């Protein structure tokens, strides 16, 4: 008898839970979901925002096979807020948008200049959106950016979105700027936000007859030398003050940013040849140790000392090169140090004097100069950053070239 009561009890519990949790089955079944891979947010003429959602057509991928690029569908809607936009889109497509696989959130430059804190807070509040989602500020309209985001060497768009920012570690020309970091910087009282600078390459890019390796490192999105069919180019960095876009960094400045924040593992630079002032040598550099930052408050202004240390190998080679001599390597090292010192100095003064934005998070180091949080908040680091002075030292040690050492 007791056993029967137990069995009936278990059966009742099972029925209760089947009914209770079935609410999730009908709404969250795979047939009722539409997986969004990217969101573009622009300004709108008729409402506050124009939101575009990019979906991949999974059935087309399986039909076409893996050798062709997966097609994507973009739907746009005008809405007053992010949540309203999602809600309206749910109604129009007759499915529920699933944002858990969203890889990119693109904001147009125009919208970012007006401030995007409301949008970022709303997106971060959404449990489906991952903090690792990349944030891109587009030089063109965000929708146009998504429409033309065709991966150059990749079949799957989602994979392209997921891995394109990884090149920041080896090139330093773009950054891995995620929603989590952006939100963290937005609420931070000792640092400012940044995002990936994106654009679309035009098919008829200007051709230049001058050979200038420095031009290679001054590229940025929408003004790069990339030509061919329309494609997204993510070069450079979008700089924010609070929630507003205040400026852009080109590729060499982005590299300086990553070197200062210790977020780069190796990079290539073209430094003036010490033996021939008209030519450049390409050097592949690797940081030896993390950049050392020391901050003092002198007469109420931040005095920031930054020391960088690199080791490198010479990449470019020409006739009559001799990289087996200690003196030659020493001269190249000095030239490299001097060049990098100028580059880093220009970059740091640009963030301080022009952009007035501490994207390097120097404020975190400066906090150690204050005893309490109240003292630090009263000092108002973010406003005083524009008064900063920098003392930069760069030490470079060129070891050798690669396979050829002497020609």
């Amino acid at each position: 008898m007791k056993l029967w009561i137990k069995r009936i009890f278990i059966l009742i519990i099972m029925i209760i839970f089947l009914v209770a949790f079935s609410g999730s089955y009908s709404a969250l079944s795979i047939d009722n979901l539409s997986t969004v891979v990217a969101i573009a947010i622009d300004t709108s003429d008729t409402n506050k925002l124009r939101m575009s959602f990019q979906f991949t057509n999974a059935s087309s991928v399986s039909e076409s096979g893996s050798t062709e690029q997966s097609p994507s569908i973009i739907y746009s809607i005008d809405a007053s807020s992010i949540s309203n936009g999602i809600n309206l889109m749910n109604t129009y497509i007759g499915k529920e948008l699933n944002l858990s696989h969203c890889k990119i959130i693109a904001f147009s430059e125009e919208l970012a200049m007006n401030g995007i804190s409301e949008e970022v807070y709303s997106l971060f509040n959404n449990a489906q959106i991952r903090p690792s989602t990349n944030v891109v500020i587009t030089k063109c309209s965000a929708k146009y950016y998504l429409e033309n985001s065709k991966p150059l060497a990749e079949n799957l768009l989602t994979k392209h979105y997921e891995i394109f920012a990884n090149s920041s570690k080896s090139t330093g020309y773009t950054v891995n700027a995620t929603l989590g970091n952006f939100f963290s910087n937005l609420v931070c009282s000792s640092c400012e936000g940044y995002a990936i600078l994106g654009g679309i390459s035009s098919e008829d890019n200007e051709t230049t007859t001058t050979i200038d390796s420095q031009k290679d490192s001054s590229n940025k999105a929408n003004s790069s030398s990339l030509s061919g069919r329309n494609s997204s180019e993510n070069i450079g960095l979008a700089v924010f003050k609070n929630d507003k876009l205040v400026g852009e960094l080109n590729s060499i400045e982005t590299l300086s940013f990553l070197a200062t924040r210790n977020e780069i593992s190796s990079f290539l630079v073209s430094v003036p040849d010490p033996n021939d002032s008209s030519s450049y040598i390409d050097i592949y550099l690797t940081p030896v140790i993390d950049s050392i930052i020391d901050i003092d408050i002198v007469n109420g202004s931040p005095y920031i000392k930054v020391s960088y240390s690199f080791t490198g190998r010479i990449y470019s080679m020409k006739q009559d090169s001799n990289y087996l001599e200690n003196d030659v390597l020493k001269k190249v090292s000095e030239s490299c140090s001097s060049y990098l010192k100028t580059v880093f100095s220009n970059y740091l003064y640009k963030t301080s004097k022009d952009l007035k934005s501490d994207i390097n998070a120097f404020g975190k180091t400066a906090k150690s100069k204050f005893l309490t949080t109240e003292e630090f908040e009263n000092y108002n680091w973010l406003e005083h950053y524009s008064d900063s002075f920098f003392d930069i030292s760069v030490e470079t040690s060129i070891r050798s070239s690669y396979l050829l050492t002497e020609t």
Partner: protein
Amino acid sequence: MTNSKISVPEAISIILIVLAAHTLVSLPKSLLNITGSATIINLLYVGIILFFLILLIVKLYKNFAGQDIIDISNFLGGPIFQRIVGMLFIFYFIFSSSILLRNFCECLKTVYYPMTSLFFILLTFIIALCISNGFSFSVTTKINLIILPIIFVSILFIFFANNQNLSFENMTPILGNGLFNTFVTGLGNLGAFGGIIFLYFIPPYLKEPKKFKKVAMISVGLAIIYLIICVAIILLTFTFLLKVDEIMPLYSAARYIEFGSFFQRLESILLLIWIIGMACYFSITLHITMNIFKKITNIRDSKPLIVSFALLMLSISLLPPNYAISKYLETTIYPYLVIGIGFILSTSILILAYLKKRKSKEFIENETMD
């Protein structure tokens, strides 16, 4: 007294699961709200005070080997006093676990079950703890002993997997919200060590009551280390968590863990481990509560009370009309209860009972001399 005796590691795990359960919801954030960037220093300071307090408790307990605080209350003030103290502890255990249950289930609902009624999520835990309490207490403590190290490993994993975000500069300004807040107001962080209250109920369960001191000291040491790691995850890696309030900050930190594009969304596994840990905590609390009730009412068997007490927990957890109130109860009221009932009341009872025992010993000695 009890037919389920427990070993030293099981006893330690009982005390630590309380701390682990509370840290998984909002405890580290509550600590950071008081002392800011000086929380780690504050925890070391509070830890030293706690060590001295525990030494005092252990010393006082020497005369009451194998007895819990309810037995000691009976010795001190008789059955009526014992019932008053017992009711206070029952209130504490039921209230703290119900509010924690509510908050944890609110978090689960937000993250994974947005369309499921909160009642059913709560009911899942209630049924689990009814079933587990149907078995012997040692079954729960043994499962707890298995799950607790896994929870510890999961916390260490969050810390080390987020090492790219680690910044020791976040420990500055060194005095955080000020000297007074760190060392005076910050004493309120003693409320984080709610697990210590279980120390007063452990002695009757111990296989070797002489090892009570060992249990107490190891528990406190591990609790401090564990709490520092939890706070460090938030303080050293995610500064924004100091400024904004997130449900389950440790879960939020776990969402950042990714190993390339192959291993992502590992927080789901961690949450599964934490759910089992939570079930263990609720189960242990229910058992201790029933045992107190059994003592103060002199009933022979407390097992028929399982469903009644479980439903009481369910009812209390449903009382707060919204998350704001349940969170307020957990972050603001709970620490005061720990300090009030756990530290002040219990230590006072122990001191008075110790003095009474010494006096009665002296009286007996004088009688025999006469």
